[in-house]
């Protein structure tokens, strides 16, 4: 580099050095300024379902109200996957220090029966349940089925012909429909269940004529219901919905079938969380669900009513009893013999992976033949370039191995050591391996880690791990 360029580089570097010194001091001070009382740092709320869905909306609202009550940021994480396993595990197997709250749903009562996990309701300390939305059956407005009676008749006359959807196989709404069929002494296969990724694609399928019935909760079908594109023939509840515009929906019980299934949502913490922490949380939650906490001129009950969510709430012991009961009912359902045969569809679970592997094998052979004829271009190119540029290959190789090592180091150490220290370490180490000057590497390490930390925690509400020294 020419002298002029070096000069230009030095000036901004001095400024950055001063800046990084200030940042370092600020960080040290932030680390020290911490009270001992709970809560004194951001709380994570895990949500097992995707952004935009009902549970996510309830979680984000709740997070807002909890922030108001507890005075610390409450960040929602959509820990999706495994049909609820990921989110529930993340929430309930976290450290029981009160800084992870778990939004739990009905799936906590079904996952262990299906053998997806060992986690069940007894692995949590129940704080407060927030709502219980009954399952409902929807048909197109022009469908000849206008009531549960019509549906029962159709099922008797033509078993196996009707198709229904609403969620994945063996998930909540599937169980709701199958459970109803079993309760009227019909096999679950009388209405063929078409698995889907959720209520939205199922409703679309309903509208396009692909299926006859959708089973899901009322809030999920609200728009189409309000616009009268679909009709609700029954809700699986003991009482009618009280929210405006929905009072006319008839329950199963009114129509002669005594079958109830409600998807529930509630908050819990990992087992072993200190009682004082639980007490604090329950008190705050009580204020929120009764409408005492106001954010933006609106209370939580008002929000739930506005969106059409049920807002039955139960505290700790009541919640635990409710979960136990639901667990029993669903367990009875899932362990019945008639249910076991529901699982198999026209194509087994391993068909698709086998097909993909087959395709991969075929392509590998075809392209492999092509490759044997002409030597691999990229390999040849790599060897020549490393000779012509004259770089020390030894350093490149070390750096090459270091990159995955650094990444693994982050995954292993960040939680205990803290984000800033690990990030600074990685930035410094990698820069030095790439033959950087010591000063540049230090400046990069300090400013980079501090900058990333502020952006992600402050602006994007992501919880980054805090380890030693409170960083």
């Amino acid at each position, binding site marked *: 580099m020419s002298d002029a360029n070096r000069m230009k580089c030095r000036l901004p570097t001095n400024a950055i050095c001063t800046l990084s010194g200030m940042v370092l001091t600020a960080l040290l001070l932030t680390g020290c300024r911490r009270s001992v009382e709970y809560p004194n740092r951001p709380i994570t709320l895990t949500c097992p379902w995707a*952004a*935009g869905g009902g549970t996510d909306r309830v979680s*984000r609202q709740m997070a*807002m109200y909890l922030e108001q009550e507890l005075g610390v940021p409450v960040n929602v*994480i*959509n*820990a999706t*996957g*495994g*049909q609820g*396993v*990921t989110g529930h595990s993340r929430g309930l197997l976290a450290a029981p220090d009160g800084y992870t709250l778990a939004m739990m749903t009905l799936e906590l009562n079904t996952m262990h029966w299906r053998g997806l*996990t060992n986690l069940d309701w007894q692995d949590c300390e129940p704080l407060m349940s927030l709502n219980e939305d009954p399952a409902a059956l929807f048909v197109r407005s022009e469908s000849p089925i206008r009531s549960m009676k019509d549906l029962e008749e159709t099922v008797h006359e033509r078993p196996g012909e009707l*198709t229904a959807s609403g969620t994945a*196989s063996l998930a909540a709404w599937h169980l709701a429909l199958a459970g109803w069929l079993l309760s009227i002494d019909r096999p679950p296969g009388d209405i*063929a269940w*078409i*698995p889907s990724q959720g209520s939205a694609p199922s409703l*679309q399928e309903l*509208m*396009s*004529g*692909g299926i006859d019935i959708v089973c899901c909760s009322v809030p999920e079908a*609200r*728009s*189409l219901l309000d*616009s009268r594109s679909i009709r609700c023939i029954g809700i699986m509840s003991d009482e009618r919905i009280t929210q405006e515009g929905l009072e006319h929906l008839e329950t199963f019980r009114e129509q002669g079938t005594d079958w109830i299934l409600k998807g529930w949502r509630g908050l819990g913490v990992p087992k072993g969380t200190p009682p004082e922490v639980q007490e604090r949380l329950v008190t705050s939650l009580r204020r929120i669900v009764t409408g005492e906490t106001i*954010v933006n001129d609106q209370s939580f009950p008002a*929000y739930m009513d*506005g*969106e059409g969510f049920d807002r039955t709430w139960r505290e700790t012991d009541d919640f635990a009893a409710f979960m136990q009961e639901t667990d029993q009912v669903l367990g009875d359902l899932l362990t019945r013999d008639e249910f076991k045969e529901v699982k198999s*569809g026209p194509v087994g*679970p391993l068909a*698709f*992976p086998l097909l*993909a*592997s087959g*395709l*991969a094998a075929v392509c590998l052979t075809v*392209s492999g033949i092509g490759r044997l004829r002409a030597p*691999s271009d*990229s*390999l040849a190119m*790599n060897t020549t370039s490393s000779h012509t*540029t004259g770089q020390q290959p030894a350093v*490149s190789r070390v750096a*090459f191995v270091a990159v995955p090592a650094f990444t693994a180091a*982050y*995954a*292993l150490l*960040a939680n205990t050591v803290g984000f800033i220290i690990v990030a600074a370490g*990685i930035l410094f180490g*990698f*820069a030095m391996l*790439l033959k950087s000057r010591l000063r*540049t590497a230090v400046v*990069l390490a300090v400013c*980079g880690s501090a900058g*990333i930390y502020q952006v992600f925690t402050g602006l*994007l509400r992501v919880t980054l791990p805090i380890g030693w020294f409170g960083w």
Partner: protein
Amino acid sequence: MSEALQTALQNTFAPGTLLVILLSASFGLFIGAIPGLTATMAVALMVPFTFFLDPVAGIAAIVTMEACCIFAGDIPTALMRIPGTPSSAAYVDDAYALTQRSQHQTALGVSLLFSVTGGLIGALVLIVAAPQLARIAFEFSSYEYFWLCLLGLSCAAVVSRGSVSKGMLSLAVGLLISCIGIGSTHGVPRLTLGFEQLESGIGFIPAMIGLFGFSEVLRNVLNPVAQSTSVSHTPKEPAASWLGTAIREVFGTAFVQLRRSFGRVMTSSAIGSLIGMLPGAGADIAAWVSYAVSKRRSTEEQQAEYGQGSVQGIADATTANNSSLAGAWIPALILGIPGDSVTAIVIGVLLMKNLTPGPDILQDPERLPVVYSIYLTFVLANLLLIPLGFLAVRLGGQIVRIPRHVILPMILMFCIVGTFAIKSSYFDVYCMLAMGILGFLLERFQVPLGPVVLGIILGGRLEETFVQSLTKSDSLFAFFERPIAALLGITCLIVWLWPVIASFLPRGRDV
């Protein structure tokens, strides 16, 4: 002028709303430029703020943020070879090749101009034809979706850089990876090897960041790329002509391209709007299909450029992915069925403000002003993208001048934190690492990476629609019974058999 339109104009151009739009645009540009952060995440973060705001400002914020975010995703695509959004993966090789020739301003300028064009045309389609088009969404059931997924995947495999068999191999790898976890189709764990953490599968964001970003870091470490120097850096020019030079640098090629290929712009926008309008099919499929169509329409010599820095390819694909955004609002507003994950959140916001979407939304005098405001915001956001995007491009252009030993560690950290930020999961970081090594190996053997990502995203959907369709009708002929399904199915066959078909057509066929 109708009353509703007047109200809408007043609301949209109110100073408060304009300020919100400006802030959301900046936010969107920022989110899009950081790999790993998606528009969906950004919208979810914005929802609490929409409670403060009146409905118009709140929705305007989301619309603007989305439009800017998907453009900004092209910045890391071009500069660092990390696709900011899955749809950018269609032209990541082209954009990065241009950067390596110090033409990143051109690449991003093309991306910006055509993003804006695509966005405006998409908005026009939304405004003019929403109710009619919404009805098409009702024609799409599992058969149609199956063929659409297959079409998108086939396009990606067939037009990727390199031989078709390698493209198909890459696709197969992606499909196989998508099988890991508990699928919605059967509800049983597959390929998890007993690890409970694998039950959620490998997410497409860690995969994308790993395959492209992480493997690029590895590649760069092994074979340092020559530091690109800015060609026309004359710091002593007066302000006005500096601006002129800058504009020429960024937009020069783009304007020429736009004048030359207006027909293609129309085609790409049509593809984008139509695909975007289908619930669940979005920008990624649109970008790949458009890229494939673009390549097939070009002459032989132009086709060779695809994957090596084809401006035409970037232009067509980015037009499609921006016009698909407006398309996603068609089913959301008219039917209340979300077109993509962002509109799923938007429907929630609309419901909360008592603005229920539905077929009668355009007849209701209370909701109509909001609909008009949404239209106006789409146009406004895309126009605003020109100056703001220009600034972002110039700023981004500085990134290529940062020395290697500073930028590579930062890219690595962004890869790690971007992946971690999705679910605060360390397991995701390991996934990213594994996919990075896979990406490096695949590139060594010249297997394209784009189809892997698309395979991961669409694999589950493909299997699901296949099983759904079979469950409903038990016969393979049903896949061709419905008219649209038959059309899409035949298009798929044409894509697969194109080399055979082309050999029967007369030689020297022009564009």
